[in-house]
């Protein structure tokens, strides 16, 4: 069998058969469950427009997906190194490029599972509205590059540092920094700094698109610049991972 397929197969089984992988998926489902429950049961939030609620759920899925991708990415090389399983991979007839591709495909599978898991939650909060289909489509189109980009960033740092803790913390800081303009509210977002960050921040790019298409029903053509931004983000992070994984820290 092709080494890339073998490694991707192992990554998938690590998520679905290993206790650690199942805990991550459970944590992801827990975040979505708690948020969906809040949107439905909280009196003030339940008064929100259906489109608003679907937009918030799509944003939460992207953020939770990015968080799990960062955890998985940080574990990709450094976790294998710490558990003593990296050297057997590096000494097998597998190139470092194939190893990275296998792990990258494993992350794609993980996001695929998380994306599918998000459907019932989106349906539970937005079944009565017109925007559910759009939310699912744009979550796939914009959420995928954002989530995978954060996963590849963590993977690159994991290969470079050889420490799960250090790569996880660094990636989480970048993730928090990316989400910060959204967390601090419209005041900062309307300033020059906020606008600049919004323009280059893939996380903002995805959320602004969700806002535009789900709430304002803007056309797809208006989202091309943001689509370009998130795809550039994905490309850059994959290139960073590829360079970093050429000589991963293995001792």
């Amino acid at each position, binding site marked *: 069998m092709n080494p890339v397929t073998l490694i991707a197969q192992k990554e998938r089984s690590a998520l679905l*058969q290993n206790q650690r992988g199942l805990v991550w998926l459970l944590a992801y489902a827990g975040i979505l469950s708690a948020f969906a429950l809040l949107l439905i049961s909280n009196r003030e939030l339940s008064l929100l427009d259906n489109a608003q609620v679907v937009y918030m759920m799509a944003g939460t899925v992207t953020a939770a997906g990015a968080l799990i991708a960062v955890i998985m990415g940080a574990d990709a090389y450094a976790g294998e190194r710490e558990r003593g399983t990296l050297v057997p991979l590096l000494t097998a007839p597998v190139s470092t490029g194939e190893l990275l591709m296998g792990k990258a495909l494993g992350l794609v599978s993980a996001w695929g599972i998380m994306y599918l898991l998000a459907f019932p939650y989106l349906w539970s909060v937005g079944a009565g509205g017109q925007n559910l289909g759009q939310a699912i489509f744009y979550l796939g189109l914009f959420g995928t590059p954002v989530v995978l980009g954060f996963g590849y960033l963590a993977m690159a740092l994991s290969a470079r540092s050889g420490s799960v803790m250090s790569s996880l913390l660094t990636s989480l800081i970048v993730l928090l920094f990316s989400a910060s303009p959204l967390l601090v509210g419209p005041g900062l977002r309307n300033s020059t700094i906020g606008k600049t960050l919004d323009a280059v921040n893939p996380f903002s790019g995805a959320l602004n698109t969700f806002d535009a298409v789900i709430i304002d029903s803007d056309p797809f053509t208006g989202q091309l610049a943001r689509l370009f931004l998130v795809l550039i983000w994905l490309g850059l992070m994959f290139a960073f991972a590829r360079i970093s994984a050429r000589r991963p820290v293995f*001792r």
Partner: protein
Amino acid sequence: MLIDANNLALTLSGQSILADVNLHMKKGDVYGLLGPNGAGKSTTIALLLGLYQADRGELQLFNQQSPDLAAIRRRIGVMPEFAGFYEWMNARDYLIWYAGFYGGMQTTPDTLLQRVGLSTVGNKPIKQFSRGMTQRLALERALVHGPELLILDEPTNGLDPRGRREIHDLLIDLAEQEHVGILLCTHLLDDVERLCSRIGIIDGGRSVFEDSLEDLLQDTGKPRYRLHMTSVPEGHPLPPEIRLINKEGSWWNFEIDLPTAMDIGRVWINLLEHGWSFDEVGVKKNTLEDHYLSLTGVSAATLREKVA
């Protein structure tokens, strides 16, 4: 030749890790790579496996000058010192999965597991394995594709005496019957004496010895004695004809460079006159440990410094 490495040097992060390492191995050799902690043994192995690139020197594996790494690795089996596994898998599934990198298994997983005494636990999750069982599985992982060269880092760590003996027998069979070259990196000199035909000793990133075990153990021609000291002889110099080798408790081992005109009795009188106090003398047989300590120098040099 399986390995032909000459004058290998490697610098990592500005620090010289290997300065001049030589290693020569042919088919069927069992080669013991020895050296103190931090001497560069594991780095040498990493270099042989292409995980590092040498700054200087020549390296040929299987007589190929510019190797295709994947092709080379198909011919090598590696057992790293820290043997990790995907613990949610069972031993049988893991071996089948790992063999996939080499184009699949040449035999059944049960035959492989039987070879290392794990046939009854093939369906058990690896997380339930003891240290010794994990070591056996790690050895089988290295053998799964029938390699021509086997690189083993501390393979008998964590094994009980019976397990150790079984692994020894398996390695001897592999070398003698299948002509597999075995590079054994270990601190257990008993393993080396039992298994190895050739020895390489590295100290401070340099090869300080490389030859057959027989040659190493050959008498230097200078008689060796062990003396039981009644007090610690700090600050007392040694007579010039006596060289301290090492110390084992209150027994101190010496090599005597006996001048033709002097008998051994005179040597002991000289030693007593130099302030050394002992109550028993015995003849010291050369062991691998003595040679190892003498060549790597740390123990003897430290003692000599203390005495001087």
